[in-house]
């Protein structure tokens, strides 16, 4: 492969050899280290390929062996250049292409971000954009060391970075601080009570810090203090001497009742797809939409589904050009009424979605009691849902100063 490329670059000719002693001619070529290839016997002699350099050395051998040589075809770059020597614009084009390629290789065309887990790739790319070191930035204007410094100071979680440029590719390696920060740091001078976030009956309660004011089985209303951050300190005679303040910590799970209500009107407009679909393509360049001027949906009622595909070079270098595919689906509107069965399935579906939403919040459903009944022009679904959930919420502890004064007074009197 490489050898044939070399032959092509240097140029070679395909020749026919005829005459008195062609074999002797070949042996002389071999002795003088003139390479001959694709040797084939043909009418009256041999045909073979020989390099341009070799061809120029043949004269004495031809005379010696009394043979004649005729060029059948010429191959290779030198002949090609000679043939197209008058095409100046073509040569200029090749030169311009090389220059342009060289010019473009001075920019960043690909950015690879590795080692990030909390910090998303988009954030890093946005940061680079702010620093004017993103796609299309000039390589000579980027100071990698300064950029690393900037990245570390901009994001506290980043403890080590390395930015390297190989060719037109920038590699950003990041090491993040994976040790979690203290989940919540409460200010020392601010103390919190735990209050009920919702009405309910306490089912489970574990108090780790603070004075519990409610127990298992007690019914609480929203805003009731469940665990107090204020602790009474009694003296030997059983009198209140001092209040100590300390933030509370507790797990409190209560049985909470949710009211559920849903209404399904009997009359509705049924949308039926007719199956007629028309597709249109649009081009979006820098936020401007170029529409197809010859396209018309030709439907009375239709829904439009848009698929946008943004062009990108590498997996993260997006160009401001996107192709939008719009699918117009025709549908027919008809008035219809739900039957009881249909309303029931629809209600069940809605309820299921509602319960699913609750469960996603970490709420455990323990029971539900839902009824459906027809009222005038709609089906009304009402009921209650029993659930277990944490009702912990924090509220600053009220400080009682008067007692402190009293205590101070007694201290003085003693």
């Amino acid at each position, binding site marked *: 492969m490489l050898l044939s490329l070399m032959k092509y670059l240097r140029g070679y000719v395909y020749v026919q050899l005829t005459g008195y002693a062609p*074999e002797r001619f*070949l*042996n002389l*070529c*071999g*002795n*003088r*280290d003139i*390479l*001959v*290839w*694709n*040797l*084939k*016997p043909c009418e009256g002699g*041999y045909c*073979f390929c020989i390099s341009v350099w070799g061809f120029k050395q043949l004269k004495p051998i031809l005379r010696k062996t009394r043979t004649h040589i005729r060029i059948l075809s010429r191959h290779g770059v030198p002949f090609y250049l000679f043939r197209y020597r008058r095409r100046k614009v073509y040569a200029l084009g090749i030169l311009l292409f090389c220059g342009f390629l060289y010019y473009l290789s001075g920019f960043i065309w690909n950015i690879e971000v590795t080692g990030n887990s909390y910090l998303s790739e988009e954030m890093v790319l946005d940061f680079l954009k702010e620093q004017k070191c993103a796609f299309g930035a000039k390589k000579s204007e980027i100071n990698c060391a300064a950029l690393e410094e900037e990245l570390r100071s901009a994001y506290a979680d980043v403890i080590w970075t390395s930015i390297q440029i190989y060719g037109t590719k920038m590699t950003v390696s990041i090491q993040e601080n994976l040790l979690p920060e203290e989940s919540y740091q409460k200010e020392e001078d601010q103390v919190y009570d735990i209050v009920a976030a919702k009405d309910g009956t306490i089912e489970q309660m574990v108090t780790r810090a603070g004075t519990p004011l409610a127990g298992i089985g007690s019914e609480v209303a929203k805003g009731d203090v469940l665990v107090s951050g204020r602790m009474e300190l009694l003296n030997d005679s059983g009198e209140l001497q001092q209040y100590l303040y300390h933030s509370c910590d507790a797990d409190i799970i209560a049985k909470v009742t949710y009211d559920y209500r849903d209404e399904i009107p009997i009359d509705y407009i049924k949308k039926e797809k007719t199956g007629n679909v028309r597709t249109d393509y649009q081009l979006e360049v820098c936020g401007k939409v170029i529409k197809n001027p010859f396209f018309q949906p030709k439907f009375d009622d239709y829904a439009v589904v848009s698929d946008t595909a943004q062009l990108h070079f590498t997996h993260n270098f997006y160009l401001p050009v996107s192709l939008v595919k719009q699918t117009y689906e025709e549908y027919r509107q008809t008035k219809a009424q739900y039957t009881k069965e249909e309303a029931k399935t629809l209600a069940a579906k809605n309820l299921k979605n509602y319960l699913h939403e609750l469960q996603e919040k970490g709420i455990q459903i323990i029971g539900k009691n839902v009824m459906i009944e027809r009222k005038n022009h709609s089906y009304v679904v009402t009921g209650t849902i029993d659930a277990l959930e944490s009702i912990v919420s924090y509220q600053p502890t009220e400080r009682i100063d008067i007692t402190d004064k009293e205590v101070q007074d007694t201290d003085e009197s003693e």
Partner: protein
Amino acid sequence: MRKKTNQSNTAIPVREKVVNTLELPRDLLLGEPMLTVTGRRELYISNYKGILEYGDSFLRIQTKTCRIIVSGTRLAVDYYTSEEMKITGFIDCIQYES
């Protein structure tokens, strides 16, 4: 006189003996041809002196010790240098002539 002819007659066998006992490569020291045949379609020959005759169906090659006749169909010489040549085509027979 007799001794001298004896010497000249035994010169080659002695050389061959040395090569044989020391297990030296015969192609380098005795100038014997090397043939590498891949299947029936490729043949590399090195250590030859030249081509004697060449046609579409046969090829006679002169080497230092003997002549080699390769016969077959559509024989072509891919390349031909002073050290090695490559022959392609459909080879029927490789024959030695002394």
